[in-house]
């Protein structure tokens, strides 16, 4: 099966966190932001920072990258983490897990969280190959694509920047956007 990964395009994100409420409801059986396996990190200073302060809107989606060389798996002393070939997901076997949190130490991204009630780490396991966060994202900011296409949102973003910065670009009306502009 083709290996896929979740990609995130911040320019489409509204910050609504539907991915997070969906994830916790689907995987945890109750709605919660703290039990979500995906986390939208945000800096939303727009209404708070002063006019003379430098500020930018930032969204970043953090979920397990399902690394091909998974440090969480290497760090796990009980071999509780296993890669499932069908989905490409790294999954935790809670029968083996001892709650030592070494996987969290190993993960370079902070993508594994710890449930203090159950005394267990938890992470994105790609919802059996159909990530619900992607399915429920109302704007298409999250996508589940083949691993050889994960760079496309970023490339698209950079391409648009290059076009914008081109000399004389400010005076032009971008093709196909006449209608938008008149709106």
């Amino acid at each position, binding site marked *: 099966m083709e290996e896929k990964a979740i990609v995130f395009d911040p320019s489409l994100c*509204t910050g609504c966190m539907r991915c997070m409420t969906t994830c916790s409801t689907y995987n945890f059986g109750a709605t919660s932001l703290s039990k979500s396996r995906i986390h939208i990190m945000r800096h939303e200073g727009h*209404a708070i920072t002063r006019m003379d302060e430098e500020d930018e809107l930032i969204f970043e989606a953090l979920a397990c990258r399902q690394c091909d060389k998974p440090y969480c798996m290497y760090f796990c002393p009980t071999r509780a983490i296993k890669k499932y070939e069908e989905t490409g997901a790294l999954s935790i076997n809670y029968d083996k897990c001892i709650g030592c949190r070494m996987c969290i130490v190993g993960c370079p991204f902070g993508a594994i969280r710890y449930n203090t009630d159950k005394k267990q780490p938890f992470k994105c396991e790609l919802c059996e190959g159909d990530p619900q966060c992607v399915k429920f994202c109302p704007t298409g900011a999250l996508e589940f694509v083949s691993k050889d296409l994960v760079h496309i949102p970023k490339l698209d973003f950079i391409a648009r920047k290059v076009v914008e910065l081109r000399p004389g670009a400010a005076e032009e009306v971008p093709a196909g956007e006449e209608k938008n502009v008149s709106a």
Partner: protein
Amino acid sequence: MSVPKGYAGNIAIIDLTSQEAQVIPADQFFKDYDIDPRLWVGGDGFITKILWKDIPEAIDPLGPENEIIIATGPWTATAAPQAGRAMLGCISPETGGFSSGSFGWYFPAAVKYAGFDVTIIRGKAEKPVYIFMDNKEITIRDATNIWGKETGETVKLIREDVEERFEGEVRVLSISIAGENLVRYAVACGDATSCPGRSGGGTVMGSKNLKAIAVRGNGEIQIDDPQGLLDSSYVAVNKFIEEEPTLKIWKEHGSTTSLSATANWPLTGTRLAENRDAADFPKLNNAGCLNCFAPCYHWLQIKEGPYAGLRQLGGHMTFLTVGLRNIGIQDFDKWVYFERLIQELGLDPASFTMAFSYAVDLFVNGIITTEDTDGLTLSRGDEELIWEVTRKTAYREGKLGNMLADGVAEMAKKLGPEAEAIMPQTVKDKPSIQRDAKLQALIWSFGALTSPRGGDWLRLHNVWELAFLPESRDTYPEFIGMTCLELYERCLELLDMPDDLKKRIFGDPPKINANWVRGIEGKALFAKWSEDFVALFDTLVTCMFGAATQFMMVGFGPSTYAEILNKITGWDVTYDELMKVGERVFNLERLYNYRIKGWDVKDDRFAGKLAYEEGTIGIYRGKVVPWDIILQEYYALRGWTPEGLPTKEKMTELKLDSILDEVKLPD
């Protein structure tokens, strides 16, 4: 009584006089306040029941006996669509009667994740304080050095003070300068962004020396059928995205989509296009509350001109409409500055601009002079003057600031009959969004007459006539790829309403055309349905911007609400049962206002003469609006007496028997 799934399970009762906070289980609260959650659901339902018991007679709204009630509902903070809303209730400083306002962004979700369905704040602190709800641990903290700070600064300082661990973890509902100075229409503002705007809650918080409420919520909400909830939400949202004709334009322009309708400013106007472009409006991210699929805010940044660099999370319809119509702000960047200024100072944009606009009219008519305005020559459209007067009002500075801070009704009372005659659209001492009730469509303005919180359009919020008014019908449908008639038909087909009701409102067979828009046929019934419907989503609590007959044409109706609510709670409510919830809450609000203020038919009137004169422009040019005829038809449809009060039969039908002894109705 057991607590259904979907509720957080606790109620916080905080007394600022004794500096004590109590956490009581929801079942105890339901017993104490005689609440069956299936009959009252949450939000406005809970607020009205709490006010009914706690404040049984008229009080000084600024006295310690007033309460701030923050009520979420079973919908809030779940995986349901648009789950980021709650209601803030109190006795209104403007009207002295019932008041509440819906607000969103992330404070409502945080307070529910902290474990609270309802937060009740009583008493008055001796010195400025703020409340910190660290999940279920509630502390009352000193706010002396935050007092006097504007909204954005307050949020930042409190987040530092409570040691927020990552951005957005702690959510803050705070007041600003206007609330501290007891401007009558001050608002509380959630994360400097979303305000229960027309509630007057900011003034009440100010009177309690309560600067802010901060919440850290890390808990979870139990769901009866999690997979079912996800499935139903998925279907509902996707249906909406596929079928809603205005969604594309809505995504680009947020709630300003309706500017063409509410401000008679065609979306195609070049001036508006230039303005929007200057603010980079359509190209910036939308900003949504929890689980929002139809965001009304934008993350804005002004690129050029005197306000270059200004960032604002907003671009909201109310600000733009009142800015344009009431005080004549013409440019987009100035609108955005105005919005930011109003939020930073914590003012209600509608009440403030109506007071300003009224002052201009009084000034032009010579009823007030430069002696009353601290030497200022009042006019519309001069932004430097507007910014100055806005600040003066928030700080209650000088004669002018104090006059405007008291609001339209108080100004008229003090200035006498000559001033009263030219009052802008005001009912029960509360101004609406615009000067002349005849300018807009009938249902929209009629809502101000019967709204339980005074002259306010949001409790009968229905844009169907507005969108089809002659001045907007040619531009609006053009943008959604449909002719006006096609849009009419599509809306009628998709409206979630039983066929017999559609026939009674729109004729048999149901049809919307120019005659329907201009006429009064079916309007009273549509008004009643809309009021019950608004009361319903204000109890769930969810957002009006995804609801049928609101700004978008299709939207969720009671059927969708019932299906999703059942998955959350495990109930088996139906369309009819939910519409009855809305009707029940609306009736209790009406009764409550009668009980404490004696409001009945005599108060369902616009102040001044303007609304009762012949119109000069629009569809009421040369005509008088038959307000009283529609009002009596509406009373009859509601099962009310000609005095505008529910009959005993109506109360029994709505299961309000238990309060029959507590309110004395006329024989």
